[in-house]
């Protein structure tokens, strides 16, 4: 049989399951999404006619219902990106540095402990932090009040800025291990002879970090920043389940807003346009970060 069937036939047979799945579950939905976004398309009654770019115009025209929902959600999402990316990157680097300085025997133990929460589902994470931060009967309020630190319970979940604090703490606890692993890998790759040379010159730990470690890991750090921005842009589960998008929709993110448009308002067409706009915004932010770092590289 091995001479009977040609390599080309084998190649075709092997690649076709993936191509088929890709067309059915990625390409078709992708094209359908673009198509639907150009129509007045209801979730229940289907296509009500071609309207060109009207959905996009509606979303981008100030004052319209969809514009208000989209802009508020975009603002909320950007707030979360701004408050979450620095801690998710800096604390992750800090954890990686601590692990790097631990005795070799202890490294795997602590690495596993810092990373284990990443394996838990977002709904379980939300359940835990919902009941840690709950106003009535939540553990943190019980603890702080019983210790006399708080006179009365804080409304962690439905008052700002506490709502963001709760979502942020849950997110950091849940996802920071992933960034930490990437930093650990980057630190492992740094050439030890650089540190030895610095030791001979009598450089202290801080100087070694600034002049050797940081420049050596900057590409990985940049990759981590982009990944974290994308992940924060996609905030959904934590704010849906911990704060339910509140208070006053201040933690309603883009994904939640699109979901509301599709399911509560029955507007699949407008929702698809919003999703495509969100995708374009994410791509632009990523590209901007990429080119900024690229130009810096050129200057250096």
């Amino acid at each position: 049989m091995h001479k009977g069937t040609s390599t080309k036939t084998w190649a075709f047979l092997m690649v076709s399951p993936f191509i088929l799945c890709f067309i059915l579950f990625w390409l078709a939905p992708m094209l359908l999404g673009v198509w639907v976004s150009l129509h007045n398309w209801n979730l229940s009654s289907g296509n009500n006619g071609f309207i060109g770019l009207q959905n996009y115009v509606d979303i981008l025209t100030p004052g319209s219902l969809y514009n208000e929902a989209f802009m508020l959600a975009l603002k909320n999402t950007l707030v979360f990106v701004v408050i979450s990316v620095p801690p998710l990157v800096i604390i992750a680097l800090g954890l990686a540095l601590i692990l790097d300085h631990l005795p070799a025997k202890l490294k795997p133990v602590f690495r596993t402990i810092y990373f284990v929460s990443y394996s838990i589902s977002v709904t379980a994470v939300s359940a835990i932090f919902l009941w840690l931060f709950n106003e009535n009967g939540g553990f943190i309020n019980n603890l702080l009040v019983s210790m006399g630190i708080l006179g009365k319970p804080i409304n962690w979940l439905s008052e700002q800025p506490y709502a963001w604090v709760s979502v942020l703490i849950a997110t950091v606890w849940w996802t920071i291990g992933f960034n930490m692993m990437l930093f650990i890998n980057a630190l492992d790759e740094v050439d030890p002879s650089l540190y030895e040379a610095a030791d001979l010159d009598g450089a202290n730990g801080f100087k070694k970090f600034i002049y050797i470690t940081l420049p050596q890991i900057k590409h990985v750090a940049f990759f981590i920043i982009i990944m974290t921005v994308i992940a924060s842009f996609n905030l959904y589960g934590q704010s849906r389940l911990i704060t339910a998008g509140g208070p006053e929709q201040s933690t309603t993110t883009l994904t939640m807003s699109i979901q509301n448009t599709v399911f509560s308002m029955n507007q699949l067409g407008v929702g698809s346009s919003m999703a495509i706009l969100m995708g374009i915004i994410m791509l632009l932010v990523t590209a901007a970060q990429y080119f900024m770092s690229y130009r810096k590289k050129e200057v250096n």
Partner: protein
Amino acid sequence: MRRKQKNIIVVTLAVLIAILFLLPLVWMIFTSFKTLSESMSSSAILPKVWTLQNYINIFSPTSDAPILLWVFNTAVITIIGTVLVVAIDILAAYSLARLQVPGKKIIIGTIIFALTVPGIVTLFPAFYMFKSFNLLDTFIPLVLPYTASTMGVFLIYNFLISFPKDLEEAAYLDGASQMQILRHVIFPAIKPVAVTLGVITFMGIYNDYLWPSLVINSNEMKTMTLGIATLIQGSNFVNPAGMMAATVVATIPAIVVFLVANKYFVKSVTNSGIK
């Protein structure tokens, strides 16, 4: 001497942070053994009175949260989904990296393009497709869409193009068939990457929330992750102890898989897309 002092400081710091990381999990486990009233008022981690009542409640057949069914659903879709994704991706990546696939450049270009498009763009249209074909509330949308993920093909393809061809060529000269080469040369070589992909895929399907929440409605079809979300959003579920018992059931299998696969998972994260 100074080195020892430095070690003590670093280890102490590491232990303190470890306590912070473990505290929510420890709290979850102990709260699941508290009585309802104690779980609402307690400011201590350990229960004063230990009870199994929360677990008895969630596993009772009259419970409106059929947890055993959710665990079963989760097991079915994660196992089938992971096997499918890994098998499909290995075959595709191998043929793209080593064989004469017609339109190879276009396929690889499309895969890279798809990697850059945010998932939100295809999410709701995919939901609408499954709705149009009356496939909502079945296992089909819970399993098949994951096979369109391009990350796995890209991961294995990247590995294979940097993997030397000598061994395959030698096997070819010895008269080995395409399938024999795949089984005896390629599989052993890509095993770590394939296991890595398997673990990532498993965790991805196991923990997915948004997609299953769109395509599943009935209580009987839910996954564990979705079930927990339902319990959170259920208006009458104001019971931290019961909630934590369900969360423990949802979380322990994931942690066990994670700990078993830890070595590969560490590798997978450190290898994915960086170099």
